């Protein structure tokens, strides 16, 4: 029996359980949502520093060369958030699946992979209580505005191994939708009936990515990737908008200075300011270019029985492109995020399955607003 298709079915079924998204955030209410991180549990535990070299992450197509046989993988992420809304805090939570993928080797030099990962997250729900005066009489109204969905990145990618260098190419399709709804309830007056209005927005776009991994010195690997995106078309039944998407550039290193210890770091940049004019045209605050930095260390000296037990720690920081509040003339405060990370991994089933666990604890800050989060990543890789 060929197990490759079965693995694909398994990971896609897993993805179908929930749209890929690493984390939700109430800050996703602005712009195109929360820029997500398509990292594996391992990369997540390493602060994203390993993301350019991680074959399970959907960033650098050249990293797919890390697969030497057929493999399927999926990542689940449970997040707990605490949002400070000024007069109190809300405890929020969600379970998502940031990345799922399937890869297969063709000969000894080529690896093909299909991945589905989150690109933009638009899951949020905010509630307001107000007093309105229909018919001249004050009535308490509870308004709830919520969005579910986002933009998923489907990637068909290839890596090609050459001596001392690996090249990668990926073709991306951005797809997905959001179901946005607004409702009003009148808790204290039964004469009024609740109101609900909903809208579905579909997204479509394409992109290309290129990547390379070079090993200039023994134990040291450097990598870089560039992703060029076209326009993202957002359409409803009666209107549409085309938003230019950014060029994304990442560069990083991976080194093993001593046996059993690995260090990885990645710096990323994306010119989200390309979308500024289109967003401003819809009345939103313009987006900005953003940087991201991630570093991580993996210590691979512990053993659990006969299994190796790599321990990972990391730190990451990033800017997010969409200002919080304000408008096209006076944008609100910029949003940034940082987190410390940790995790471990182990093989099972005679090395045919790997389980990675990662913890991501951090906060997002935009001026006086803040949201803290804790995300637990669970990654499963199967090499049948």
């Amino acid at each position, binding site marked *: 029996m060929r197990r490759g298709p079965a693995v694909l079915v398994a990971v896609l079924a897993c993805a179908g359980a929930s749209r890929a998204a690493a984390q*939700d955030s*109430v*800050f996703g*209410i*602005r712009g*195109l949502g929360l820029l997500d991180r398509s990292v594996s549990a391992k990369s997540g535990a390493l602060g994203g520093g390993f993301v350019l070299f991680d074959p399970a992450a959907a960033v650098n197509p050249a990293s797919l060369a890390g697969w030497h046989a057929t493999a399927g993988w999926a990542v*689940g*992420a*449970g997040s707990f958030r605490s949002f400070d*809304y*000024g007069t109190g805090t*809300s*405890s*929020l939570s*969600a*379970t998502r699946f940031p990345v799922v993928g399937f890869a297969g080797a063709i000969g000894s030099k080529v690896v093909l992979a299909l991945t589905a990962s989150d690109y933009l997250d638009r*899951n*949020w*729900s*905010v*509630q*307001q*209580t107000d007093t309105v005066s*229909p*018919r001249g009489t004050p009535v308490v109204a509870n*308004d709830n*505005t*919520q969005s579910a969905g986002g933009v998923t990145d489907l990637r068909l990618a290839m890596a090609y191994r050459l001596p001392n260098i690996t090249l990668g190419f990926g073709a991306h399709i951005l797809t997905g939708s959001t179901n946005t709804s*607004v409702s*009003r309830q009148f808790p204290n007056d039964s*004469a*009024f*009936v*609740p*109101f*609900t*209005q909903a*809208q579905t*927005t579909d*997204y479509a776009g394409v992109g290309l990515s290129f990547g390379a991994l070079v090993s200039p010195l023994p134990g040291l690997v450097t990598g870089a990737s560039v992703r060029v995106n076209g326009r993202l078309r*957002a*359409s*409803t039944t009666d*209107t*549409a*908008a085309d938003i230019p998407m950014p060029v994304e550039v990442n560069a990083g290193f991976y080194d093993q200075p001593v046996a059993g210890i690995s260090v990885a770091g990645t710096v990323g940049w994306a010119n989200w300011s390309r979308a500024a004019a289109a967003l401003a045209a*819809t*009345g939103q605050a313009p987006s900005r270019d953003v940087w991201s930095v991630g570093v991580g260390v993996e210590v691979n000296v512990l053993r659990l029985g006969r299994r190796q037990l790599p321990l990972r720690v990391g730190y990451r920081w990033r800017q997010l492109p969409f200002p*919080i509040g304000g408008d096209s003339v006076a944008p609100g405060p910029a949003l940034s995020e940082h987190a410390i990370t940790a995790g471990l991994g182990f093989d099972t*089933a*005679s090395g*045919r*399955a790997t*389980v990675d666990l990662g913890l991501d604890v951090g906060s997002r800050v935009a*001026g006086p*607003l803040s949201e803290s989060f804790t995300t*637990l990543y*669970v990654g499963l890789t*199967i090499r*049948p």
Partner: protein
Amino acid sequence: MSAWRSAVLVAGLAGAMMGCREKLTTPSRCPELCPATKLEMADTLLPLADSADTSVRGFVLIREATYLLASTLDSLQAVTLIRFSAHDTMWTVSGTTLDSLYIGKQDSLVLTLELAQRDTAVKNLRLVIWRLPAQFDTGATYQSIQPYLADSTLVDTVAVPDTAQAGAHTFNIADSLPMQPGDSGYVSLAIGIVAPTKTALTFGSGNLSTAPLLSTYVHARAPFDTATDVFSVSPFVSLFVINPPATQPPPGILAVGGIPTARALLSLSLPKLVVDSTSIVRATLLLNTVGAVGGFANDSFYVVAEPVVRDYGVKSVLWPDSATSGIVLVHQGQTGQIQLDMAPILRFWGTTQGDSTPRLIMLRAYPEGSTIGAVNFSSRAAGAAGPQLEVTYVKPYSFGVP
């Protein structure tokens, strides 16, 4: 352990660790993290001048009402007429050598009435009881019955205690009410009232209420005249006659309730937008009264609007579901505008189930046929004073793109 078994194990572990939680809703901080667009509401008044309306009396007839009425009001005079069933002339006795005993002497009579409504402010109220021919004309009118309401036929007048409240009350009437030879055991009574001030009284008729009961206490014939028994009979016929007689509501009037009960049928010519819209959060039918709401002092009753599912005019089939009806409580003496919630009916019409039903509603009193309460509304013929529909809706919300 195979790879697949390990995978299932780990997947189960991961699922148990994370669960499938989804808690996204939070109060937000405005304006930074609130939607750029706010919901806006607006009101509009839809005149129903293009609609049709009619009103008909007689949906619950006097003989079908749950109450019997005695009244001395200037606006409504009424006398109750009851023909009680015949009681036996003998009774059986067990445990003796005798099988049966025959009535020898009538001792006393007790009339039991389930008082329903009265004006408790009126004191020294008395029931006036006349004897009627056993086979009185059930088509009698208030005028035709007058000759029988004479001193010669008076049986008794009994006091209604000033403290009497709703419920069963017994009244000892004449010590003897001789059985007429030709009456085959039937006893027919007319029951009116008298009081220092004009008032009214209702009591149960037996239709979904407790019927009057006439109890006769008897002795057996000699030599067994120490034996006694009680015969209780309920009405064979019960009704009341009123003055002035009931008439159909005049043109231009939408009558609801009264004697016999009236209903009003409104055909609403509503824009499709109003019926199909999910943005309507409140709809109210505005009805202007003509005169004051009638009924007992301080009494109240409901006016209910129900959708018609099959239009057969005044005999239309209603959809008697409280979830799809509008209801409002009206009070005796009330005047002015009465507001009746129409949102449940509009929602019903907006559903698949209700989209084929006529845009007709029936206004009726509730509970129907159990109160003398009545209210008259201006019809569409009254122009601006006619029925209107006030609609509160939420303006279309602009989500924007993206």
